[in-house]
């Protein structure tokens, strides 16, 4: 029971931690961890979501947040934009130059991230400055563990191409 509480505490402290991350940080054997996680999921104390090739574990009550995060990091460009914004607020032009993406593509992705509430936009003079509006540690943890499949990589390229062609409406 103590072990289970330890697992639950870590998941609450680090929402979006992966199975591997949990095993590594707690130094628990895989079988043992699987057993306790199954129990915790059954009790409804935690839930998991598969993103890319990894399964992320979230505490109860994090359902809506988890959904937002999953959508936010679902494409490569969004992940790169989020990682870039961790260094500080930037304008659309600066993001576009730093990542080598077209301005319409950046505009589409920052728009989506803004809708999700993960970033905020603030008008400064003639340009709009974007900054992170979410716990950077959680975002960094989820992005670093993210392993997209080949198909997702191809789909991400298609999204960037299509968002660069039109306005996406």
């Amino acid at each position, binding site marked *: 029971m103590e072990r289970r509480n330890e697992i639950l505490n870590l998941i609450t402290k680090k929402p979006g931690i992966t199975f591997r991350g949990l095993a590594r940080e707690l130094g628990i054997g895989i079988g043992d961890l699987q057993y306790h996680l199954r129990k915790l999921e059954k009790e409804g104390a935690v839930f998991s979501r598969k993103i890319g090739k990894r399964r992320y574990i979230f505490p109860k009550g994090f359902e809506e947040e988890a959904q937002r995060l999953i959508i936010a990091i679902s494409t490569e460009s969004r992940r790169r934009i989020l990682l870039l914004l961790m260094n500080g607020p930037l304008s659309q032009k600066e993001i576009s130059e730093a990542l080598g993406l077209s301005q319409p593509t950046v505009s589409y992705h920052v728009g989506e991230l803004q809708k999700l509430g993960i970033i905020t936009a603030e008008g400064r003079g003639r340009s709009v400055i974007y900054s992170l509006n979410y716990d950077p540690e959680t975002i960094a943890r989820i992005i670093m563990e993210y392993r997209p499949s080949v198909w997702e990589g191809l789909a991400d390229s298609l999204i960037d191409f299509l968002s660069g062609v039109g306005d*996406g409406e």
Partner: protein
Amino acid sequence: MMSMEVVLALFVLMLSLVLAGVSFIAYKKSHLRPALYLLVAFLLLAIKKGVELLQLTQRIEKDVGLVIGGLEVIFLLLFVLALWRR
């Protein structure tokens, strides 16, 4: 023994299905309408190739020229629609 024509048609059919799959993932992730157009376009291309394949292997005796032509037109129109700058 399969003729080269059949092998190529099978390859095109598989590739169109793969591209339809990629478009589907892209649409699911982004809800971009052009991705949906591409999904339908690649599915139509797969259907078109399927019909051609059936004719090549003589499982269809009827003339399917009109059906194939129609599918080609719709495929190209959907492609243009996906790339249309709005």
